[in-house]
């Protein structure tokens, strides 16, 4: 499993009802169901990811997460997860508000556009940055709503979501332990947030 998903899994309480939005191949949910006694539901738009979930035995709805969120009853889940996907949705603010509606806790991970490499790429080269955690060219990127960690924290506050925990990530999606913890918005490549509404 991707290291950032390990971090996410560590933030989910045993036996939780988990909604994983943009669940990909279902690896995180499979881990949570098999190892952490959770029940879960994934939402995945991509056909290969959807089929991978079926082969793992992970319950999944095929569809666009923003549309599918609206079909879910309020409070139907304990935890809603959005892994490295917020920057690719059409309406990040609405998605956050919907996650708050359907689950008591939310776990969101995102790449940090405020990291020094994208900043330097833009400032020194005058080009849209391409970095390990943001590997796309500007014209073919699915990431249409990039933000910095500080931007996200502001949106969370505006959505009346409390940041209960923040784990800063390095370029490999592992937890940072050094200086990045002190200056996350400049030195962290991304972060995993645990929020409650």
């Amino acid at each position: 499993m991707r290291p950032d998903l390990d971090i996410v899994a560590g933030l989910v309480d045993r036996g939780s009802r988990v909604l994983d939005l943009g669940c990909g191949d279902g690896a995180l949910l499979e881990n949570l169901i098999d190892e952490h006694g959770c029940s879960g539901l994934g939402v995945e738009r991509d056909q290969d990811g959807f089929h991978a979930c079926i082969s793992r035995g992970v319950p999944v709805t095929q569809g666009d997460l923003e549309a599918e969120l609206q079909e879910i009853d309020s409070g139907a889940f304990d935890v809603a997860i959005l892994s490295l996907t917020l920057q690719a949705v059409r309406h990040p603010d609405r998605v956050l508000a919907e996650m708050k509606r359907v689950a008591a806790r939310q776990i969101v991970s995102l790449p940090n556009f405020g990291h020094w490499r994208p900043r330097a790429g833009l400032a020194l080269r005058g080009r849209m940055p391409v970095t390990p955690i943001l590997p796309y060219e500007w014209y073919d990127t699915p990431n249409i709503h990039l933000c910095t960690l500080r931007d996200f924290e502001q949106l969370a506050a505006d959505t009346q979501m409390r940041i209960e925990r923040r784990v800063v990530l390095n370029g490999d999606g592992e937890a940072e332990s050094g200086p990045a913890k002190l200056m996350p918005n400049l030195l962290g490549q991304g972060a995993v947030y645990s929020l409650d509404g």
Partner: protein
Amino acid sequence: MPSGVGLVETRRTVVFDGDRPLRLDSGAEIPRVEVAYETYGELNSDRSNAVFICHALSGDANAAGHHEGEDPDRPGWWDNIIGPGRPLDTDRLFVVSANVLGGCKGTTGPSSTDPATGKPYGLRFPLIQVRDLVEVHRALLAELGIERLLAAVGGSLGGMQVLQWAIDHPGEIDGALVIAASARLSAQNIAFSAVAREAIMRDPDFNDGDYYETGKRPDRGLGLARMIGHITYLSEESMREKFGRRIQDAELPRFGFDVDFQVESYLHYQGQSFVERFDANTDLYLGRAMDYFNPFDDPVRVQRQIEAGDTSFLVLSFDSDWRFSTPHSREVAGELRLAGAPVTFREIASPHGHDSFLFPIPDYHETVTEFMERLASQRGIGSA
């Protein structure tokens, strides 16, 4: 497509008789029930590879392959999904398909002889529910020595049987495939059903259901009912593509009240060919079973039943289906999930309306294949 199951035959077996009549959910009894069924593939030694096919309103036991003397190019109604290398792969699965209770294709129904009178039942056949259809399937499986299904699969009324089965009998089905089905008919569905029923019952030849010995069957009524039904099975798009406003056998319209447009001719053909192979009373009984279907009427019980079992569900809908549209399937998935069941749901893009479940649409068949693969691998059933 690889070749299918080939030559098959329908067998018959009596599953309720004598001391053991079929007791319906309503309390009424049917003293003797015979079932017509077919099987494809081989049952493995630990009897873990059985898959049951539940058919829709007008289906029969001949789901795959063809009978002796029949055209191999016109195989059973779900041949494209059943067979070697197909989504329900008979190289490793044992597939059972049976005509439903109330049917007219070999299983006891209103056209069967009532042992009490020696005459066909007609409307003296008791009202049946989807749950009763399932009980007869289970009795057949008991005859065949099968206690647990790897999967139960059905579209439309077939999917409703699968759903009822999975709820009523926890621990009997590993995987339930509920396709283009509904947990409860909408007012619009019931309205169409009512018009079809009226068409049959108002036919002067209907004779209160006792038409088997009069030499005159309510063909006009049943044909009309089928024409109405058929409109709901197609989509506006598929009708436009298939017929548009084209004129039958001519370039210019003839202007009159006779059949002129191609779509009219097609509907007439559907109605006509249906009366040749189907019984009006069966249409009434099965239609009514669908109207009253309501498996989630007691959510507390459903939750208890789901918790007692370990069935995983695959719920599929088709975007052009307006008979049981995607919201019907979403409701099925939502209610099952609320009860705690693991449910995978997908809406498939298809132009064929409600009939889509009968078409070999790649996305649809791939999803069924993946789901069956998972079920088989969990039971250690490899490829043959």
